[in-house]
């Protein structure tokens, strides 16, 4: 574990180097421990693949008694104290969020390309994409955009050289070894393989997103008819 500054109002804590479940469990455990502790000046904590970014208010840290010439060091040592006592990993949450996806066709214009690269049929790509369980490594890019780790390596594909000017809401994509879902219509560079009728972002609700870091996710293939029905229900 390494703590270093990110400018004058954030610290970053690093727990590992790669996208793996062990590092993810460390990040989640540390995030839970810090969430459960009141640390003066800490505004919010953002978990990612291997790090936590801890945003703080320097004025509040100073008021809490930190030496004015070492606010970051003082806060860093308090964070370290919390993390030393914290469990080193958390158990994954019990439930799995299942996301219905209508694969291919106009919803997944890049499905054939992924299939050709993987030397598989499109059906086999869908079969493998739905068979695996993923974990939400982090949420970012857009409200509720979950970066899902755990993609079968043969389905990995580089981002598009030229991002699309607009990706439809609910699009399911692949970028590198990650898969994810667009909660809003935005520009985007991921390979699109299908679309979900599920809503991922609802600002009027608490919490406002379907997925949070640490969640487990599975995809379920649905027909065009079922997609339309689920979309109408949503």
């Amino acid at each position, binding site marked *: 574990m390494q703590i270093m*500054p*990110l*400018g004058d109002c954030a610290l970053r804590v690093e727990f590992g180097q790669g996208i793996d479940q062990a590092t993810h469990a460390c990040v989640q455990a540390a995030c839970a421990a810090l969430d459960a502790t009141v640390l003066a000046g800490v505004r*919010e904590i953002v978990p*990612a693949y291997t790090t936590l970014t801890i945003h703080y208010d320097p004025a509040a840290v*100073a008021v809490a008694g930190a030496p004015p010439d070492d606010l970051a060091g003082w806060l860093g040592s308090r964070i370290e104290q919390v993390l030393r006592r914290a469990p080193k990993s958390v158990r994954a949450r019990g439930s799995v969020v299942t996301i219905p996806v209508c694969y291919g066709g106009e919803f997944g214009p890049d499905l054939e390309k992924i299939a050709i690269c993987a030397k598989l049929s499109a059906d086999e790509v869908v079969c493998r994409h739905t068979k695996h369980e993923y974990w939400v490594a982090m949420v970012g890019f857009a409200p509720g955009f979950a970066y899902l780790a755990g993609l079968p390596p043969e389905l990995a594909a580089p981002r598009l050289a030229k991002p699309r000017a607009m990706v439809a809401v609910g699009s399911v994509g692949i970028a590198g070894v990650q898969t994810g879902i667009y909660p809003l219509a935005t520009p985007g560079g991921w390979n699109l393989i299908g679309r979900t009728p599920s809503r991922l972002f609802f600002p009027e609700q608490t919490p406002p997103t379907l997925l949070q870091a640490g969640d487990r996710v599975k995809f379920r293939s649905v027909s065009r008819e079922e997609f339309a029905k689920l979309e109408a229900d949503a």
Partner: protein
Amino acid sequence: MITVQNPGLLTTVMDLGRPGYQRLGIVVGGALDRFSARVANTLVGNDENAALLEIAQRGPELHFAVETLVAWCGGEFEPRVGTEPLPRDRAVRIGSGETIRFGAASAGLRAWLAIAGGIDVPLVLGSRSTYRRAGMGGLDGRPLRTGDELKLGAASEWAEQRVKSPQRVSMWSVRPETLGKQAAPDTVRAMPGPEWEWFSRDAQRDFFLAKWKVTKDADRMGVQLAGPELKLAAEREMLSEGVNEGVVQVANGGLPIVLLASRQTVGGYPRIAALASVDFGRMAQVVPGQTLRFEPITLGDAHTLFLARERDLSRVRAGLARLAG
């Protein structure tokens, strides 16, 4: 009630932002220069976080159906109330039936117009700030339009007193840029970022020596600069992680981008530097074509500047509160 007779180029309702939801991918946003917004609100006796108008480049025309107090801070605009100038950094009484015409910026880019009581729009996830990409906050996530009617919250007692003053324009003024210790012109202070060591010696030298040019790729998310290519010492891939306002990241082309208030919550580009937060406001005023330099500062000095400016603002607040009594 205020009626929008002309919305200007891009006028939005903002407060100090929507923190607390970054882990769900929801950007902080808010006024691009939070300090100027805080001062503008302070000048009209508002809570610092009251919703105000952020004005960009060409300002709005606003008809007031209520007598109230306004104040604005920011770049070089020449707004008028009726035929009289509406001076910057001061509390000014606006009479019922009067119209403010904000006009265009002659230097700088943005201004913040606070109105006593603040603009009364619903809180969405704890903030009134416009979040265009998600279509929420402010006026349903969109900029002002002709015909919009802006409701105001309840003005403070201090503002109610002040409105009765015989002087239309306050004798006192508070210029946000004079609080704390300013950087040299066209300069922002920056400290090495987490990936500083990834960059080549040349890149580390050029970053602080070069005169960077502000490009047209500049919006509320970030400002792309042009100048010498900043190369990594060795090819390296970075996993995305949390970023912050003021972070200077270097994308594949080797050119730096300074992230601003509406930045994404996470980023995957190496971060060569991070601005001292007292200089964030300066980035809200840069215009394409102008030059910008980075001056090195230590983390300790950045905190010292930050705390000094906060002390200055506290004194201003205390002073204004006494004026009412």
